[in-house]
């Protein structure tokens, strides 16, 4: 990790603010529980920062967290139906907010990409180095937020053309 990278504490503060503002204060974000690592992260989202600092922010969450977050963000009642498109939209907006706030913490100027959302895992370029990672639990389910930095700064950390808000 380099001085210019966001710290674990910075990332925790950003994620806490996003979660408490839009998903409610009832269930706080807690440290990951033993066994959480075995949970399948059904949804992944990523956004890249390109410019004076280059890197990627990712959010990985299981189906239950994605579904509950979408319901809360849309202000729906538990019995109401949501589509995969709604979930992809909500998960993309979560990584967009976290990524935008991370962008404000690192040296600029830089540009934030549109979010990429996948049902499953997003394969990231191998030249990225993990600089901060949060393994948390929310409402009994795990979630992971990671910041990865690119040191050589040869180009956008997520290639242009793949960074659309869509289910992959």
């Amino acid at each position, binding site marked *: 990790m380099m001085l210019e990278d966001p710290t674990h504490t910075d990332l925790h503060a950003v994620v806490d603010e996003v979660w408490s*503002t*839009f998903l409610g204060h009832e269930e706080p974000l807690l440290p990951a529980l033993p066994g959480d690592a075995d949970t399948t992260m059904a949804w992944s989202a990523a956004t890249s920062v390109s410019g004076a600092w280059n890197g990627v922010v990712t959010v990985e969450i299981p189906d239950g967290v994605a579904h509950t977050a979408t319901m809360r*963000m*849309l202000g729906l009642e538990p019995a109401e139906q949501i589509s995969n498109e709604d979930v992809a939209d*909500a998960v993309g907006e979560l990584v967009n907010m976290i990524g935008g706030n991370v*962008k404000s913490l690192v040296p600029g*100027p830089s540009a934030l990409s549109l979010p990429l959302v996948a049902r499953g895992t997003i394969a990231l370029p191998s030249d990225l180095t993990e600089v901060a990672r949060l393994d948390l639990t929310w409402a009994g389910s795990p979630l992971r937020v990671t910041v990865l930095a690119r040191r050589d700064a040869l180009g956008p950390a997520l290639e242009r053309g793949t960074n659309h808000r869509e289910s992959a």
Partner: protein
Amino acid sequence: MKILVVDDSRVMRQIVIRTLRQAGHGGHDIVEAQDGKEALDLVRSQSPDLILSDWNMPEMNGIDVLTSLRASGCQVVFGFVTSEGSEEMRARATQAGAAFLIAKPFTPEAFGEALAGIGV
């Protein structure tokens, strides 16, 4: 008052509209656009009094919408609602003619203050 809410995320447009209501601004006529290009079309056809726009969008981003509006002589009140709230982005927004920038995640109080600042 007619308010144009511009964001490529339907979820975020819903949150913005709900937050306006929570801030005591539920009585306004709301129009929605999912990108900057649609926003420009709706400005012409709907003549909104206020635009609340995301910055980072496909087709045409928010700063290009604002620049295009001002270049065409349109002086509609324009505010950003964006995840990018750094001083650099706020300076760019002000320089382009935005009245305010609300950073995501936001509270009803942030909306109330921003709208009070433009006399709404």
